[in-house]
């Protein structure tokens, strides 16, 4: 029997769609010009980049000039957070930032870095389902707060945050602040995981800054964008030839940009239909695992989650071992266990849900994609229960579910301030 190959890690990265690949094809060797060059080959490339920008602006419901192309999600986030805040750091003024406890490392580590540079950072907790605790978010706001960064959808547990509501509330807060002479609070959202599944209207979301990358939406790796509302004061992180309105120097990644636009257009076009299909698969898999495998808990909200995300803690065993046994039967998934992280700390996202360490070590994430079929998941379910059973039999650990649930309920939820 040929070895199965079932990829269930679409949140890690996606294959480039053939349509996207075709759109990019001419820009490697034929229309290879530098968009800054004034002859026709350059102008051709420039035109292609500007068309891509216009197409993307239409999807985001913004002006084309509000889009800055970058090398990916991490760079867009760095430009949004550092590019904004560094402008305002002076001897006297130490601006304040607010982020959620389940942000991607690109946001979290950037904020931690800024906390070492003299900024103050508040990390707002999420509830047991992974939804940000809005009253605490409001309470975290200070007179010198200048940025709130909350992700649209989480990469590990897939929970969707009420971005529209938070954005609308911040708009009201800003109106009041303006009257009392306080600075505006800018609102950034990391929409990398959400881009293929949710509408991205920046007006409705009330965001000033929004990050998207190509590699999560069947586009190429190494390209992303930052939407920055007109009037948002950004400083560049990369200086040079002055490309991207002097906010991101360096010759444009022309094929990448074309690919990003093609990918987002395609994803948004098929979004609703694909979401309906994925939600059925997602809910089937969640139900099957919770029913067939004892001592399992779902991480993240049951409904307010990405259509393709399943994250479950399987108690008494460790995630890396599980992952490697799954790989042996041809299923590729992901875990929040410490054993796969470079720091040997288990997932901060699972921990933020109030789950104890042992639940984080045993967390398993399956993320579905456009090539996932019901058959794939049925195959997974013919293997997973036996693997879990085998590893459990060889494990000396027996976590008590009642005390686990109690410790989740009693987990403290408070704002963490950096530097502490």
């Amino acid at each position, binding site marked *: 029997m040929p070895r199965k190959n079932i990829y269930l890690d679409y949140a890690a990265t996606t294959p480039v769609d053939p349509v996207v690949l075709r759109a990019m094809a001419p820009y490697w060797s034929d229309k290879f010009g530098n968009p800054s060059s004034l002859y026709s080959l350059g102008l051709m490339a420039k035109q292609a980049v500007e068309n891509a920008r216009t197409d993307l602006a239409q999807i985001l419901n913004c002006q084309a000039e509000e889009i800055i192309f970058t090398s990916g999600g991490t760079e867009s986030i760095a430009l949004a957070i550092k590019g904004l805040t560094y402008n305002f750091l002076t001897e006297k003024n130490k601006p304040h930032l607010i982020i959620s406890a389940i942000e991607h490392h690109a946001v979290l580590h950037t904020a931690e870095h800024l906390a070492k540079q003299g900024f103050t950072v508040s990390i707002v907790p999420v509830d047991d389902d992974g939804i940000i605790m809005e009253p605490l978010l409001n309470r975290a706001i200070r007179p010198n707060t200048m940025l709130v960064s909350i992700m649209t959808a989480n990469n590990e547990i897939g929970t969707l945050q009420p971005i529209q509501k938070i954005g609308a509330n911040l708009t009201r807060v800003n109106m009041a602040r303006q009257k009392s002479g306080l600075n505006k609070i800018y609102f950034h959202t990391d929409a990398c995981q959400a881009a293929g599944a949710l509408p991205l209207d920046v007006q409705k979301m009330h965001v000033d800054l929004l990050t998207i990358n190509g590699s999560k939406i069947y586009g190429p790796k190494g390209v992303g964008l930052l939407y920055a509302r007109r009037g948002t004061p950004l400083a560049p992180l990369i200086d040079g030839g002055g490309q991207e309105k002097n906010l991101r120097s360096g010759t444009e990644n022309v094929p990448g940009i074309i690919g990003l636009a093609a990918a987002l257009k395609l994803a948004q076009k098929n979004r609703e239909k694909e979401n309906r299909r994925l939600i059925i698969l997602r809910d089937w898999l969640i139900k099957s695992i919770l029913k067939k495998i004892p001592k399992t808990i779902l991480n993240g909200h049951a409904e307010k989650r990405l259509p393709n995300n399943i994250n479950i803690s399987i108690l008494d065993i460790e995630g890396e*071992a599980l992952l490697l046994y799954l790989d042996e039967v041809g299923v590729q998934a992901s875990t929040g266990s410490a*054993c796969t992280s470079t720091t*040997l700390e288990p997932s901060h996202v699972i921990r933020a849900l109030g789950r104890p360490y042992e639940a984080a070590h045993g967390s398993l994430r399956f993320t579905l994609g456009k090539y996932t079929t019901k058959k794939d998941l049925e195959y997974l379910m013919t293997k997973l229960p036996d693997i879990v059973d085998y590893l459990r039999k060889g494990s000396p650990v027996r976590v008590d579910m009642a005390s686990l649930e109690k410790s989740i309920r009693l987990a403290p939820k408070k704002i963490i301030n950096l530097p502490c």
Partner: protein
Amino acid sequence: MPTYKKNKKSILSSIDVLPTGQEDTWLYTDIVKEHFFHPKNLIMDANKIKNYDGVGMIGSPACGDMMKMWIWVNKKTDRIRKLKWQTFGCASAIGATSMLSVMATEKGGMKIDQALKIQAQDITNRLGGLPIRKIHCSVLGDKALRSAINNYFLRSDQKQRIVEESARLIDKVSGVSDHDIEEAVLEGATTLEAVQKKTKVGIGNPIVIPEVEQLIRFYKEKYFG
């Protein structure tokens, strides 16, 4: 026309700055994989265990690795006759415990005094190496075995043979001793974060962190002035 090989060599020799961290991969050796996918002496039903001579346990699910070990001793020859174990942990933890169980029982069984001397490094060597990040945190088998042997001494009225771990246990949860921290500092981990990367000390048990930080300072001064 120079051959490809020659070209390759000349390019390589012209590189004077080699990327660092290349040696640290996630890849497991074939020996680790064999022991991970086909663990030796793993006991699937701990309820069936009886008449053992010693039992030991180390680690906790909170820190990511935990193991339990049972030994049977041939009292005439003072050799380990049989060893069974269970592990909660990643591939290297399972693979390393399996390898240790082979080392202790092969060739008619290891002498107890010899078994007490097994170090994490010996297990790692037999496995053909482990990803650097994993060595300190997941090779707990030697500690579990010493704990099982001490338990055997206790049960068999040989209290005088009990070996106190010369190192002092700092973090009961992760089983990390002052000696482990000393080793980590010697290997260049001079901050709490770096030591935690190597040993997992204090992860899941933050109460010990102040003491760990003190030890790091102490060893740093001792070795690096």
